[in-house]
Structure formats: C-alpha cells, structure tokens
C-alpha cells in the first residue's frame, strides 16, 4: 500500500500545474542542505578538537555528554520552524477498502525521511567512534548511538505533533516556542537549571550502564504512538469539525473600509478571509511570534545587535505578514476566483484592495514593535524605514509574484490535512524579498555610511508608495496576459 501512496504522490507532483516552480525550489533547497550537511560533517569530525578549545578545563567526554541534550533542544526549535510535514490527500482513500492504519502509518513513517534526522548522526557519531569507543567499549559506543536514535525519533515526532496541533490552533505553536525559549533562558540567563548538567547526568551514566539507552528509545516509541493516535482520530476531522462547530456565525462589516469604495470592500472581504480560515489565521499568528525576534538579538554584542541586523529583523517584524501571506496570493481566493472575474470588479480595485490590506496589517505590526524603543530611538527609526520599505517595495514585489502563482489552495478543506507551505520551502520563495533591501543598504554600510544606506531605503520605499498607481497599472497589464492561466490553475483541484 505504501508504494501505491508514494506512486500517487509522485504523480501528483509531476502532474501539478506548478511542477516547474516546485522543481526549482527543490534544487535550491537540496544545494543548501548539501552545503549544510558538509559543514556539519566537518564539524562532527573535528568535534573533539572544538570541544577541547571551548571547554579547556573539562574532560572531553564530560563536555561531549553535556552538549547532546542542548543540541536536541535547539534541534526541536529548528524543526518547529523548518521541518516539512508529510502530506497525503487522504480523502479519496477514506471510503475505499484501504486500512486506516495503513494511511496513518504512511504519514508517520514518511516523516522520518527528513534531513533533520541525519544531522545528529553526522555531528556526533564521528566523536563516538573516535573517542567513546576508544576510551570505553564498543558496547558503550553502541549505547550512545542507540540513544541518539531514540532522541532523534522523539524530537521528530514531537515537532510534528506540535506542528499538527498548531495547524488547528496557532497559539499552540506560540506556547511551544515560548516554552523552549524559556528553558533556554532559565539556563543561560537566569541560571536556574543547567541543561548541560542534566544532559551529563544521563549520558554520563550511559558510560557505565549501556542498558539505559533503551530509555530514549522508549520515549521515541511513545511519541510515535501518540502521533499515530492523533492522526488516526483526526482522519474523521472533516465531519467532526463541522458538526461540533454549531456556533452562530454573525455578519460583520467594517464601516471604515467602505469609505475606500470597491477596493475597501475587497480589503474587508480579505480580512474576513484571513480571520475565518484556519490556515490564513495561522499566518497572522505566526507574525505575532516574529515580533519576539527583536528580543533575541537586540542589545546583544557583536553583529547580532548591530544596525545592519536590525534592518533585517525590522523588515521581518513589520512585514512578516506580507511575506508569509502574500507569497500564496492569489491562491487564497482560488475557490472563488471565477466569481471575482465575472463580477463587476475592476482589477485596479482588486489590486488597490491588496495594497490596502497589506498597509493596514503592516501598520498594525509596526505599532506593535514600538516598545522596542527601549533599545534606542534609532531602533524604532530603522523599524519605520523598513515599514515604509514593506508597504512600498515588498507589497509590489509580492503582487508581481502573485501574477505567477497558479496553484489552488482549498481553504474550505480542514487545516489538519492541509499543510503545504508550512516548511522551509516557503523561505526560499521569500529570498528575493529579503535580499533586495541589502542590495541597497550593504554597500553603504560596508564603507561606513550606513545612514546613507538607510536613507536610501526610506526614499525607495516612499517613491514606491507615491508611484503606486503606476505599479498598479503595470501589474494590471501583466495580469491580463496571465489571467486565463491563473484562472485555469485555480480551477484545477
């Protein structure tokens, strides 16, 4: 059965309207991953040397045992943001004589094929073979590898479990990320606990009691089982969801927006779209999560706290919604795109509505970043410049790419099995958006005139804002050459 699913998935990939784009993304992704893997492998190979340098006072094995859990904690944090959820459109199989367990097993097993599961082995196994098996015995070395396996599987399924939960409710993601950050802070900032000591207390005992390796394996197995049960019970989710959900849906109007005419009505509709669909709503809540990025970097010594980095963080904090939501444009409206095309809407108004939406939400995010004035008025100034950049340049770029997006998103389907786009791939698509401000800012900053660079960013942003009507005309003309392809792609279920 599994092979049939894989074959169907491959067909879905090759026969999709977006195959070309997906392939480009995959190639770029695999190059990046390959580069990272080589780095990690080199790091793993010389881990003994590195550990000796970083902790010169400690015994090599003690410091090695100390960092393992630390690694897995940061691994979990990375996975939460980047790991891809395996997908399968389960609906067509549900009424067929296909065992539910087979479906769920396919979904859970394929998630193991992730590079994240290679990293710990690349990083730690060379050390284990070089030092542990020499100092202790090959049994101990095996015990280490087995417990690595256990922790990897555990992390893999824990991350997926949290991600699946947070697809249903965006707050879960915020809470989970908050807990991980809190654990990290209570070690490095408050010094309540020491993760390295905890890690050593387990792996240290492992050197004398190899059988302890079965403990993480048991954890891993438990987490797998939990995932399995969650998925299995959620195969029903579509019907359950609609039956449980008997809350009265009231109509809302945004009188302020109706002043903007058709464009305002369209923006109002789109705000409703964002708030009333789980997936788009998570995009908004994720944006709130990014508001904390400043706390992680600002005020730190070195490049992390520099103005150049603030340009980057500032753009993310005020524009994350544009990047996150905008890159799937106009797919969000795929299910009623035909209706929009035949109704009495000018495409100019349609685009104006988009600009309005982005401006409103970006303004909201900018206002939320004002407390960062704590790090100096210049921080806020940089945020403001990047806010101008976002509503000027990035909105236009996002809409330019939107004219090239032919893939349907079915919002009416439950979010539990609708995961496309919640992975590292989406960051690749946003690369042009992230790089462009640096093309302007970096050359000046490099020669010590960062302020000129910043001024230029602000001016460019303003120019784009004031020439909006020009860009709207360009985008409209561009749209008319592609509208049939877009509409056909959206009709393609």
């Amino acid at each position, binding site marked *: 059965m599994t092979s049939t699913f894989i074959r169907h998935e491959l067909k879905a990939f090759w026969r999709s309207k977006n195959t070309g784009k997906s392939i480009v993304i995959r190639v770029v992704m695999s190059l990046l991953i390959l580069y990272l893997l080589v780095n990690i492998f080199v790091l793993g190979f010389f881990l003994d040397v590195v550990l000796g340098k970083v902790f010169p006072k400690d015994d090599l094995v003690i410091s090695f045992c100390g960092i393992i859990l630390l690694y897995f904690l940061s691994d979990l944090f990375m996975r939460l943001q980047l790991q891809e959820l395996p997908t399968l459109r389960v609906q067509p199989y549900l009424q067929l004589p296909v065992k539910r367990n087979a479906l769920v097993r396919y979904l859970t097993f394929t998630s193991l094929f992730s590079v994240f599961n290679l990293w710990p082995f690349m990083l730690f196994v060379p050390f284990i073979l070089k030092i542990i098996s020499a100092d202790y015995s090959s049994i101990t070395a095996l015990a280490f590898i087995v417990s690595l396996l256990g922790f990897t599987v555990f992390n893999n399924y824990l991350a997926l479990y949290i991600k699946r939960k947070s697809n249903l409710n965006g707050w879960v993601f915020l809470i989970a990320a908050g807990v991980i950050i809190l654990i990290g802070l209570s070690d490095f900032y408050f010094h309540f606990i020491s993760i390295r000591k905890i890690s050593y207390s387990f792996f240290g005992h492992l050197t004398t009691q190899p059988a302890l390796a079965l403990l993480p394996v048991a954890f891993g197995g438990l987490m797998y089982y939990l995932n399995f049960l969650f998925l299995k019970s959620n195969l029903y989710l579509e019907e359950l969801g609609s039956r449980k959900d008997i809350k009265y849906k009231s*109509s809302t*109007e945004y009188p302020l927006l109706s002043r903007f005419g058709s464009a305002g009505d369209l923006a109002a509709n789109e705000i409703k779209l964002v708030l009333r669909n789980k997936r788009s709503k998570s995009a908004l809540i994720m944006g709130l999560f990014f508001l904390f990025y400043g706390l992680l970097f600002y005020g730190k010594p070195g490049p992390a706290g520099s103005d150049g980095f603030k340009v980057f963080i500032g753009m993310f904090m005020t524009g994350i919604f544009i990047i996150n939501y905008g890159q799937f444009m106009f797919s969000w409206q795929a299910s009623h795109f035909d209706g929009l*095309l*035949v109704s009495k809407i000018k495409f100019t108004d349609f685009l104006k509505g988009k600009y309005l939406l982005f401006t409103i939400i970006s303004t909201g995010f900018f206002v939320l970043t004002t407390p960062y004035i704590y790090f100096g008025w210049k921080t806020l100034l940089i945020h403001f410049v990047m806010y101008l950049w976002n509503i000027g340049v990035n909105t236009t770029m996002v809409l330019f790419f939107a004219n090239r997006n032919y893939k349907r998103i079915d919002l*009416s389907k439950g979010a539990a099995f609708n995961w496309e786009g919640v992975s590292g791939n989406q960051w690749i698509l946003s690369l042009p958006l992230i790089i462009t401000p640096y093309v302007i800012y970096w050359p000046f900053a490099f020669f010590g005139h960062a302020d000129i660079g910043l001024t230029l960013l602000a001016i460019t942003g303003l120019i784009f804002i004031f020439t909006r009507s020009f860009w709207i005309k360009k985008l409209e003309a561009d749209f008319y050459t592609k509208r*049939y392809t877009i509409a056909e792609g959206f009709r393609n279920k």
Partner: protein
Amino acid sequence: MIEIKDLKKIYNGVTVVNVPHLEIKKGESIGLVGNNGAGKTTLFRMMLDLIRPERGEVLINGELVAGHENWKNFTASYLDEGFLIDYLTPEEYFYFIGGLHQQSPAHVDDFLSGLTDFFNGEILKRGKYIRDLSKGNQCKVGVASCLLQNPQLLMLDEPFANIDPSTQFRLKNIVKDLNKNKGVTTLISSHDLNHITDVCDRILLMEKGVIIKDIATSSSTLSELENYFGVEQAFAAPVKIDEEENH
C-alpha cells in the same frame, strides 16, 4: 444581444467547442442541452471571458467580451460554487455584490425580502458561512445574487441539478417572469428536458462541441429531444437482434 463568430476551443488536439455563428436576440430565452462533455460549460466560460478561445470572438451588445469590462455591468451569471465567496455569510455576500452595483445594504435587504419563498427559510439569518451550506442552498445564493444585479442577460449552468423540487418549480417561475415581463435575455443549460422545454423558447442542442440543432420550442420539441437523447439507443439494440434472427 449576443453574437458568436467562428468560436473554437481545442484541448489537446480535440475540438471541444466549435460554433461558426450564433446570434441571440434581446429578450430571447435560450435553453442549452447536451450530454456530458458536449461543451456547454466551456461555451459558457468563453462567453464570460474565463477561458481563452483558440479562435473567434464573442460580442455582447456589440462589445467584445475579451479584454473589456462593460458587459459585466448588465450580465449576471452563476456556473458553479466557484462563483461564491465561501467564507462569507450569505448576507455579507449579497451586500458585497449589491455594493458593486451601488446598492445600499437597506436596498439589498428590501430586495431579498422578495425572495423569501425562494429561500424557504434556509439562507438568511442562519448563522452559517456559505461553505457550510448544502450544494442546493449554495445554488440558491448564487441565483439570488444574479437576480440582485438586475441583469439584462442572465446565464445559469445547470441550475436545477442540486435544488429540491419545490425550488425547481419556483426557479422556473422566476426565470419565466424575468424573461416575459422584464425582457431579460436568459441562457440556461440543463439535463432536465421537461424543465428546459417548459422555460425556454429556443433550444440549442450541442454534441461534441457543435450546435447540431437550433429549434423554437413547440409542443413536439420535448419528444424530439427525447428521441435524440434516449430512444435512439433503445431502438438500436432491438433492431440488431431482429436482423440476426432474420438471417
């Protein structure tokens, strides 16, 4: 009202629509019939500028449909659920559509109160988004939004398919009333031959993308259509057996 010239749509080398010439006059009521794959929906979509024909053009009121927007002011259409904004409540959707035609919410409410029978209490003030409605009720929302636009040209693709018998009856009356009393040009496709001959004055029969019959409805039209669709096959089989027995 509508003029089609030399219209052709080809998918993968197969011609799915081929209409050399068709003229529909103002105030006519047209019924479009044909088996699955005959090209009815494709023809509708080309008339609404949703897909690009390989050749030819469609004019509504003398204006090219492709690349122009004027026809949208007086044309209302409902082909499938893809025309509805499904995360809105029906009321919000009606206000939106009304707003596009410069109608105030109060005016829209007033208009909708005239459709109480048609809605049968299943659409308004139910506290549901359009996506939570059944297909039949979604169709009611689509048809009502067409009526709201006060169109001069109304296009409906298989409107009878998902709605209950009472609503079918009401819809027929509404369409007849629009056509006879308000002079609206109507264009409706259906698989239900009874309904279509009842509502429409002129029937277009499509087969493999070509309009093979263009008939004014009369008392014999229904049996003529029934002959084309069903009896052909029913007769074909016995005839063969007869021949075998004769030999």
